[in-house]
Structure formats: structure tokens, C-alpha cells
């Protein structure tokens, strides 16, 4: 096709390049469809779980990207006791279980990635991530108590990087804001 005809067609099609208005609940309809899909059984869902990162879904845990920060400690007696008291009703206290959070970081260039946060007393060596696949994906699964946890990734032992997939902590005392996740008690699921 010559350039003249090409230009002509480009002009003719210009109005068709506008985005048509769609139903405002389109996204919710798709999400509801997925919800039905998942509720019908784990078969379809399991495909997602065994995705390109090759990991399993956290168990008994809801990990939530919470924009507000959390500065709590895991392992202190006060924290654990009060968490159990307040996140569970008396009849289901025993059903509280520690959760597993899967931390994922993507960097093709990194040689070593760890995660440091309130759950490991900001120890940069305690929780290394392992390479998953060949896409520069790093991951680690960490058992966490219920509650709020702030963290950052540490790349090559020196560079502190917030989790781009999680919102930020409000504090900036030590540079860029931390990222935050929340783990809720099993009985509230």
C-alpha cells in the first residue's frame, strides 16, 4: 500500500482510536467471576499458585499491602500475648497460627538479596531470598506472627530498597520509607 493510501486510512480510522466508555462495574464483574472460579475449587487456582515464581501460596495468612506503616516487634512476650488476646475471640484462641509471608523481589542484577524488618530485628543477614527461575526473581517465605510488620529488601548487603509491590510506612527517620505487610489471625479469615 502506498503512503498516500496509508495516510488516508490513518485519517479515516482516527476517531475509532478513541476509547469507548465501558460499564463502570466491568472490573468488579471480572473479579467476581474470578471469585466464583476460585470458590468452585482449588484446581484452577492452583495454576496461579504454582506460577512463574514457582512457589506456594502463604498458608493461613493474609498478606496485605498496607500503606501505613507498622512498627511492631515479633517475638516479644507482650506483643504475642496481646495479639492473641485481641485478635481472637476466647473460643478460638487456639486456632491462631503463625503465618507465612512470601517476600518477592525482582532484580536481574542483584547478587544477593535479603529482607530485613521488624520481624527479624532488622538483621540484614537473617533472612536471605533465593533465586527463583531465571527471570531475576528472588523469594523467601517467612513465618510471621499476626500483626503489622515493616521491612525493606537489602541488595548486595548494602542497598536498602523498599518493596515496590507494597505500600509505604509513614516514617522516614532513616531515609526512604519502609514497606509494610499485615498478617491477620486465622480466625478472622
Amino acid at each position, binding site marked *: 500500500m502506498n503512503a498516500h493510501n496509508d495516510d488516508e*486510512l490513518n485519517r479515516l480510522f482516527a476517531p475509532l482510536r478513541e476509547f469507548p466508555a*465501558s460499564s463502570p462495574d466491568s472490573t468488579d464483574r471480572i473479579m467476581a467471576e474470578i471469585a466464583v472460579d476460585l470458590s468452585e475449587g482449588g484446581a484452577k487456582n492452583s495454576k496461579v499458585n504454582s506460577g512463574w515464581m514457582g512457589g506456594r501460596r502463604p498458608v493461613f495468612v493474609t498478606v496485605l499491602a498496607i500503606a501505613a506503616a507498622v512498627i511492631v516487634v515479633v517475638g516479644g512476650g507482650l506483643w504475642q500475648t496481646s495479639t492473641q488476646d485481641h485478635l481472637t475471640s476466647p473460643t478460638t484462641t487456639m486456632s491462631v497460627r503463625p503465618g507465612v509471608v512470601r517476600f518477592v523481589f525482582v532484580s536481574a542484577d542483584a547478587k544477593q538479596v535479603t529482607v530485613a524488618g521488624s520481624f527479624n530485628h532488622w538483621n540484614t543477614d537473617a533472612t536471605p531470598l533465593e533465586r527463583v527461575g531465571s527471570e531475576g526473581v528472588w523469594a523467601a517465605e517467612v513465618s510471621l506472627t499476626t500483626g503489622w510488620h515493616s521491612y525493606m529488601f537489602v541488595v548486595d548487603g548494602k542497598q536498602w530498597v523498599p518493596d515496590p509491590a507494597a505500600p509505604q510506612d509513614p516514617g522516614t527517620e532513616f531515609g526512604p520509607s519502609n514497606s509494610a505487610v499485615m498478617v491477620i489471625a486465622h480466625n478472622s479469615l
Partner: protein
Amino acid sequence: METDRFIIARILRGETIAYAQLIERHRPRCFRYACRMLGDYDEAEDVAQEAFVRAYRALSQCVNPDRFGEWVFQILVNRCRTAIERRVTQDRWFVRTDTDILDPRSDISQQMPQTDDVEYALAQLAPVYREALILKYVEQLTYDEMAEITGIGISALKMRVNRAGAMLRSRLLNIVKREENYECTQ
């Protein structure tokens, strides 16, 4: 803004709801294509929804998460083809032979066809030609990108676009002429 890769990481980590973010990001383009291809908004909604649900189910097979948009679009193109195949045969009579092709020297755009006319003329083309024109002039893809999505060779695509463009101009000219005649008789 979070990259598609990170959103997919969140979904695979268990945050299913993050998928909504991918939908919001890529749905407008998909819905536009489905509308132009199917000519029916309700059907376009359904097909776009089907494409996103299928993409979710197959998320683990998305080899390059940075290119989720292209991937779901490819799924959509295939779903549109299937939707058209499912239709009753009445659509097929729109298929015309090359005898409709107009003299390429005449410039149809100078005769001011309306957008509706273009859509109407487009709807009259066989789906393979419609698909070629929409990918080329609405989506503004390169032939390489078109080949990747459709699985058709570049030279065949060029030929198809050429032919489809000529057929469209022929249809448009007929429509414009009919409208002129109609106005004269009023």
C-alpha cells in the same frame, strides 16, 4: 506506578485482588478492540471479560510478566475470532470478492465519510480483513507486532491490509454515494 511484573508478583503471592489493577490498566485497549471488531458493545464487554478471566487462570503461563498487556491482548484477539465463528452465518454474507475494489486513485477521505460510515463499512468486511485493518490503523501496530499476535506471516499480513484497505474504500464510496443520492432526492 507499579510495573505489571510487580503486580503479577503480588497476585502470585496471594493478593488475588491486585489483579483488578491489571484489569484497570489494560482493559480500555482490549474493550476498544473488541468493540471495533465485534461492533456490539454488550458482546465486547463479555468477550473482554472472558479474556481477562482466561488470562488470570493462565497467569502462570505468562512467560514475560512485563508484557502482560500484549499477552492479554493476544488472548482477546483470539477470543474475538472465536466469538465471530460462533455467530450465526448471517454475518458471512458481508464477505465480498475483490471485484468490489475501487480505483485506488480516488481519495475517499476527501468525501468526508462519517465515523459511523467507517464503522459500518468495516463491519461489512470479512473478519480477517477487519482484524487486519483494526490492528494496523486502530491499534497502530507494526507488522512485526501484528505477526506476533495473529501468527500470520508479515508478507501475508501486508497483502491482507492492502486488500482490506481497498475494500473498505470501496464500501465507503458506495455509502457516500448513496447518501448523496438520498440528499438529492429530498
